[in-house]
């Protein structure tokens, strides 16, 4: 089995969110980057488990600059065989998906896995776009994935519950919680990652269909109103007359 896992970096979940240059750029000052949790905990780890059980290879792919290499090495330390970096700023989802789809087209994979979304842009776009570019089925928000030869059985989140679906390779998925347990890279993995192949590939032409023109922080919350624990009638009254939510 040949698996391709899309890996993106994301600011650590405790990062302070701020902007610079007249609110047009994310302020990277003091920000630690991690592998986007959905890509790492779920997509990558499940891909590794499948290959451990059935044989095959796991390649990671990232659209980014050399600044992304530490994130890519982390994914290699967790166990991916090799990595590809398309050497370009990941300007928008369409651009990123186009790059990955073009690479996948020439190299052929049984399955492409993405995380369900990145925790910075929450776009949930890349997997679906890749699937459309490759004309393959897309199982979004997959929580479980098992392979039996060329047939995969997946469980995924749908409105009001979950669905069991079947699909034949090749296909694309986005991975959500439940797929796998987080793996902490060990010393041997970290050492091995240093010498695993990281291929840098030039980007293909793709137009910029969307761009962020500015960012904004939400208005500061007004101070919390405290209600005495013995006076729940007052809370109900406030929820009804002041907040008007009940």
């Amino acid at each position, binding site marked *: 089995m040949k698996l391709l896992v899309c890996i993106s970096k994301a600011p650590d979940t405790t990062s302070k969110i701020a902007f610079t240059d007249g609110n047009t750029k994310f302020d990277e000052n003091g920000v630690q980057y991690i592998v986007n949790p959905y890509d790492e905990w779920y997509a990558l780890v499940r891909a590794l488990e499948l290959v451990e059980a059935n044989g095959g290879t796991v390649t990671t792919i990232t659209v980014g600059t050399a600044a992304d290499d530490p994130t890519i090495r982390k994914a290699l330390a967790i166990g991916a065989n090799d990595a590809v970096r398309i050497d370009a700023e990941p300007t928008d989802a*369409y651009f990123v998906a186009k790059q990955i789809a073009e690479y996948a087209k020439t190299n052929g994979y049984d399955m492409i896995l993405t995380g369900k979304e990145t925790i910075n842009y*929450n776009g949930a776009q890349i997997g679906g776009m890749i699937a459309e*570019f490759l004309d393959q*089925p*897309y199982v979004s928000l997959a929580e479980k994935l098992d392979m039996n030869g060329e047939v995969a059985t997946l469980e995924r989140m749908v409105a009001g519950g979950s669905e069991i679906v079947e699909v034949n390779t090749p296909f694309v998925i986005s991975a959500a919680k439940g797929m796998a347990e987080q793996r902490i890279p060990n010393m041997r993995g970290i050492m091995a990652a240093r010498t695993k192949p990281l291929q840098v590939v030039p980007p293909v032409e793709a137009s910029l269909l969307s761009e962020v023109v500015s960012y904004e922080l939400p208005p500061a919350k007004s101070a919390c109103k405290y209600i005495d624990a*013995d006076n729940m009638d007052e809370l109900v009254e406030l929820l009804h007359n002041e907040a008007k939510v009940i």
Partner: protein
Amino acid sequence: MSVIVFVESKNGKVSKASFEAVSYGSKIGEVTAVTYGEVDASSLGEFGAKKVLIHKGLNSPNDQQATKLVVAAVTETGANVVIFSQDQIGKAIAPRVSAALNAGHASGAIEVPKTDGDFIVKTNVFSGKAFAYVKLNSEKKVISLLPNSFSPEKSEGTAEISEVSYDLGTAGITVKSFKSEGEGIPLPEAELVVSAGRGLKGPENWGMVEDLAKTLGATTACSRPVADIGWRPHHEHVGQTGVAIRPNLYIAAGISGAIQHLAGVNGSKTIVVINTDSEAPFFKAADYGVVGDAFEVLPKLNEALKKFKAAQ
């Protein structure tokens, strides 16, 4: 401007999020709603749709066939804006449609776009910790609207309903079965949510959370550790790595308010926090705070609400 809105249904009923999307679309241009299967589309006109196209032959909105349906409708109507609800189904289809149409995609939209000059959409980013203004440069544009971020408006209108039948090819995915989370409103759509965390000490204590939710007609949620240890089902886990919600009311009992938890709930209009620790970080994000023991406060709140409901 001509606008297509993809309308989802369940058991023949249009979803709440789809009514929001139709109403939102009608603020941008003339809306043609596109839907499938056996569905009662009669009220879409009241939410602002001028036309409804129903593809009866498609029963479940699988990603590939639904994409072909929307693309065919775009071709037929010449629409330049396509709107989805950013829910489970929308997430499967909107990116495909965007790739198929070479259309820029604004995902997580929370306001009607500005269209004087550039086409700019306000979206939720950094798990609700910030907003981004996204400019769409392409001729065709796709917008995914976050559920519960736009209040649908109802008026007198009626829509002209017609059936369509396009060649949708085949579905690559076969649905084998469906497991229901149970009755009640799914979390992403819920307007009232009662949530609890590790402060509740054990799964056996969730009765008081459920009782309160029942009185309110609310959906229940929980913090991540509670789902991880199996006290509650995974679909109740809200936060940065769980479901992100934007209810009108979020009541959190025995949850400390870690930054990753807040990330999934900070879009809530009103937050009530119940915690024994007056220093709990959640109070900083709260509108109303009760410093006290959830084991006492939740039942008292439930009684007060019952009294209020009875008097209504």
